[in-house]
């Protein structure tokens, strides 16, 4: 409880193998949150392919973009982002949901999709990514 220890979360030991460096799409409408995820991923040694915050943009990039994995906020400015998830499913690109709703807030159709409950720490994210089979 006293403030001992000297580990910094941003300089944490790498949780993923640099050989498995992924190009990740972040779909997140909250700018600050997107920035946090971006930092976490970068510190893990991954590459953030793109950060999109609007639905049309997200749909466009889900259709044509090139990346290994996506982190999708379930709610994009009041709209569910499931169409994006469907496009990715169709293309065989793995994704995880990030949501404030928790697992109960996700459409049962996507019950199998790994879900990150906001707010989360870098460790949670790394753990989830390691459980997801990225398309390589």
């Amino acid at each position, binding site marked *: *409880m006293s403030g001992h220890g000297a580990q*910094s*979360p941003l300089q944490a030991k790498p949780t993923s193998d640099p050989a498995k460096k992924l190009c990740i799409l972040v779909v997140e409408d*909250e700018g600050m949150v997107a920035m946090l995820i971006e930092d976490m991923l970068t510190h893990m040694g991954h590459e953030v392919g793109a950060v999109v915050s609007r639905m049309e943009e997200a749909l466009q990039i889900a259709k044509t973009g090139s990346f290994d994995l996506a982190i999708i906020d379930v709610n994009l400015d009041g709209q569910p982002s499931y169409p994006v998830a469907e496009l990715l499913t169709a293309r065989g690109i793995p994704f995880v949901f990030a949501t404030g*709703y928790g697992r109960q807030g996700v459409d049962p159709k996507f019950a199998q999709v790994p879900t990150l409950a*906001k*707010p989360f*720490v870098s460790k949670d994210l790394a753990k989830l990514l390691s459980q997801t089979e990225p398309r390589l």
Partner: protein
Amino acid sequence: MAAGSLAEKIPIMRAPALPVDQTILDLLPAAVYACDAEGRITRYNRKAAEIWGREPRIGDPGELYCGSYRLFWPDGRPLVHRDTPMADAIHTGRSHREMEVVIEQPSGRRIHTRVNIDPIRDETGEIIGAINCFHDVTARRETERKRRGDAVRESERRLREVLEALPTAIYATDAEGRITFYNQAAVEMSGRRPELGTDKWCVTWKLYRSDGSPLPHDQCPMAIALKEKRPIRGVEAIAERPDGTRVPFVPYPTPLFDEAGTLVGAVNMLLDITDRRKAEDYAQRLAAIVEFSDDAIVSKNTLGVIQTWNKGAEHLFGYEAHEVIGRPVNILLPPARQDEEPGILDRIRRGERIDHYETVRMRKDGSLLDISLTVSPLKNAEGKIVGASKIARDITERRRQEERRQLLVNELNHRVKNTLATVQSIAAQTFRGDHGASLQQFESRLVALSRAHDALTRESWEGAELQELVEGTIAPICAEPAERFEITGPPLLLRPKVALSLSMALHELCTNAAKYGALVNGAGRIKITWQVTSSNPEPRLHLRWEETGGPRVETPSRRGFGTRLIERALARELGAQVKLLFPPSGVICEIEAPLS
């Protein structure tokens, strides 16, 4: 002289003279006399003179047909001599048997007689007179009347006994309405003992019309029956007893008349309808409840034919009552659910009740609606199942509201969590690279707060299960909770404030254990136990955290955030008593907090 000349022309003792010796006549026990064709008395015996109370002169044309001055019919009307049966026999030739005639003697005494008269004819068949044989029946009549009177009194007595024994209030009045009789039931109903011969019109103390307005006794149905000389039926009234209790009743006043049609009084029966009224009121109230219920309330017979249909049903299903009564209840079932009804009917016939069965029914317009259905068997007075009542509640709105509420909770969560994530991001950007460990600690506290919110959200913010809270707090910090933790305590739903504070405290204890305590090495154990005591004025939670097997503990040199949160914030927010101890064997924390 007219009379004298007449007497001379007609020989007095001529043909009707009875050829019997007077002595013999006088010995007869019956009275006998004869008249000639003009009605003049030609002979009579001693008995006849006795009954007449006088001795008429033979052949006197001044007194014809009978030896008595005054005669009456049995009912008391005067009987003039020329209308007597004797006169009739002489003028018409008819015989008379046992006719009753009242003779008044000169003393005024009246003698009831029975007369037997036969005309006397000569050889040519011409009536020349008549003979009357009569006897005194006064004494016999008296005896008879007395006997009849006794019989009447006896019958009256018996009638009284019967009336007395009847469970219904009965009383009688004379023609003026004065009460002459009442039975015990009348006393019980009126709550008083009426004064015979004084109290008038009704045995009751006070009377009201069924609308509650006072009803004067002289306007009561009995008074009207007496005044208008007709029975009164179909009226209801309310009697008030001296103790203030009221009895609704139906009177049956009936006037009584004698043989001559003269009003002699009236009899009244007061039928207490309290029970009937209560049953009617109850039935009416029930009917109103059913009628104006928002729920559809429908009854059907054992064949599933609709019997009753309330306003709620009209509103819910779109059918008017007259459109569906008599039709099978199947018309409400969507085609896909037609097979539901036989099952429901089977269960009803077995006397089972179907409670809050959620299903779908079809409106008149074919649209479907979600309903919650309760079906109960309807039994008749003998307990036989004669049908079922169905109460259907539209749950479309409830479903919609639940969905809306869930949506709001989700939205709130989304906002709260995004805000927490934003705060996390701001902190990370602000303290980038500077305070690594502090930032990590900050993030983990933020996440702990967020997990506590999740636990609350699952219970719709009504509270959180302590067990769930404890497990949720441990999970992010300890990879193998089952091996390291021993958690025991009864199920306990904590209100949101308690849940949040306690969960933050547990988080601090957990992270401390992970850094310095029982979770540092592989051997440490943490025991979390709680119980609830029902002490006054409110139940209290006793929670104990006890670490063992970790590295030797030293009392920290300064109070960090965690310690302060546990010791002070918890105490302040919950009014809890907190003991945080650092014995060398392991940290012990005891929290005692009021629960209400």
